[in-house]
């Protein structure tokens, strides 16, 4: 069996190993109502993209270490100085100065609550979350933005107090490594691979 495409960086260049695409033959599309005349063909394609997180990489790396990072504008003279952003903004949207990276884990553990939520019965292709997906949008004390994520245990409701959990075992290094559970949940109840 061929190896999935894997990438590392050496000397600031991508180094590729394995298969980045898989060949599957085209097949004809025919009209069953008109003597099976040809109408078109299928075009199978299976590709692996190579995506850089750039200045946000520290956020995704930190999830696997049980930390929730955010950014803050610390530029003197900026009207938005002190504003905290999560999702990350590498640069302040006001002055465009480089933001400082800060650790928001403790604030999240003590102040996070559900701003709004949604229970999703359907998903698009390539979804890996178990359905129904319980989307939650989370507000934090002192933070200007409202983070979108998902609840792993319990039923969401407005103003519900939640705490972050992190996929520290077998991380995917995607936003799915961050999830939330109701405040008071014990470690033994957490989904496989997740820790507080």
């Amino acid at each position, binding site marked *: 069996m061929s190896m999935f495409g894997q990438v590392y960086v050496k000397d600031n260049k991508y180094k590729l190993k394995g298969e980045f695409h898989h060949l599957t033959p085209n097949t004809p*599309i025919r*009209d069953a109502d008109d003597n099976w005349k040809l*109408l*078109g063909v299928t*075009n199978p394609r299976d590709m692996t993209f190579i*995506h850089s*997180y750039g200045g*946000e990489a520290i956020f*995704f790396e930190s999830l696997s270490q049980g930390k929730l990072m955010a950014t803050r504008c610390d530029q003197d003279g900026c*009207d*938005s100085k002190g*504003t905290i*952003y*999560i*999702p990350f*903004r590498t640069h302040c*949207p*006001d002055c465009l100065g480089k933001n400082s990276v800060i650790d928001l884990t403790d604030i999240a553990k003590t102040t996070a609550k559900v*701003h*709004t*939520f*949604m*229970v*999703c*019965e*359907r*998903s*698009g*292709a*390539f*979804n*890996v*979350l178990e359905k129904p*997906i319980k*989307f939650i*949008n989370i507000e934090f004390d002192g933070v*200007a*933005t*409202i*983070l*979108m*994520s*998902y609840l792993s245990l319990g039923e969401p409701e*407005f103003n519900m107090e939640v705490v972050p959990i992190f996929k520290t075992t077998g991380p995917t290094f*995607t*936003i*799915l490594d961050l999830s939330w559970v109701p405040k008071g949940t014990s470690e033994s109840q957490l989904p496989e691979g997740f820790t507080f």
Partner: protein
Amino acid sequence: MIKFSKQQLKIPKLQRPVYLVTAGQSKFDRAFPDKRTEELCIDSFTMAAGLLDISPAELKKYIHTCYYGHFADHFGDQLLGESVIHDRLGLDPLGNVGVKTGGATGGSTMWEGMKAVASGYSDCVLVMGWERMDEVPTDEGNFLISCAADKDWESPLGHIYTGYYAVMAQRYWQIFGKSEDSFRRTLAEIAVKHHGYARFNPFAQAPMKITVDDVLNSPVVAYPLRALDCCLMSVGAACSILCDEDTADQLTKNSKNKPLRIWVSAGSHTLRPADRLDMDIPLLPNETPDQYKDLGERFPGGDRYPGFTGFLAARMAALYGYGMAGITDPTEDLDVVELHDAFTISDVQTYEDIGIRPYGYGREYVESGDCYHTNPNTGEPGKLPSNLSGGLIGCMHSVGATGIMQTYEIATHIWNRWDEIHGDDKLWKQYNREKPSDWTSLQVKDAKRGMAISHAGVGSHVTATILMDPDHLINKDD
């Protein structure tokens, strides 16, 4: 953008008046196994020429530049699709450009075309949009649509765009709808209305005679949104021709089409609702500075603006557009609108963003009957009928074409040609669709002014396209 400067809030001014002289569209459907995209584009262009009583070849002689709206290259699996269409329409070597702003692509394409004429660069332009959403199954289609969300922070969460809307729906329902069943039923009425109006539209993909209970019993997609609350996934094309005054007079001299004055404006907001910072509500001409001071008391939790309950981009598009066209109160000044009903909830949100109703009171537009062709409460004409085409829920959402389809529909009302086109037996037959025995005219009597709202994502881009009979302008010296 955190704060607005005076320069940023300047009302746009066109260098010269711009006119819409004709428009056209193809049939819309979930799939066209027997037609290439360019065939659909040619269908729409041929219709536009036909409404001017000239041949496509004659119409092409006037066109100087072309603006093409096609949102999703990955859906159609064709980069530079604009070039394919341009070539097949035989419009080389004219300059052309592709426009992409998600669900607002059609409206943004109108925006670009208008500016080309207003600036004097071109005297006549083609604005055409299309989408090919039948090259993948529906779940892969949902995945591709979800790629319009932030790919690192949002899309992996279910790969389902409906979900990203549903969190807004949930918040709106709980705060402004006060979690009332009656509000949920009002949302369902919108779906009933739009699927119902689609029954009288031969272009429409999803005509249905349904009830509120049918909507409420349809499968949950992302609670509280159900299948019948959601827009369609479509294939089809639409186009319009924009001109300066002299060209407009020439092109319409033997036609029933009257040149219509057109203004298009645009607004934007963050791709991720997560990033929407709290701010004061920018006021429209029919609102007062103290109107929203106690909004949080009337609707606890409703004082965070725009939060998850309003679309700042729509408000800004309305603010610029109303300023350009002289509109002070959309309900009083306009006769018909087509709104971007991607979901029943976003339809209600938009009523408030564009000032049809104040924030918090969007549901009244439906419950009063004002949004209907014929007010069900009074039997009289609705005060400001909306989405008589069936909208995105009943007619189509062939993304790049949607904002242009809406404009086409508004124009047919102002031209007083709605019946002629939508009631045409030959067209119903040509599209292999059965004209209902109770087919009813939805022509808005004496319509002189209308507007189409085109909207992207969860509010990242919104345009307002305003059409007026030039003999019924609001700014008389315009």
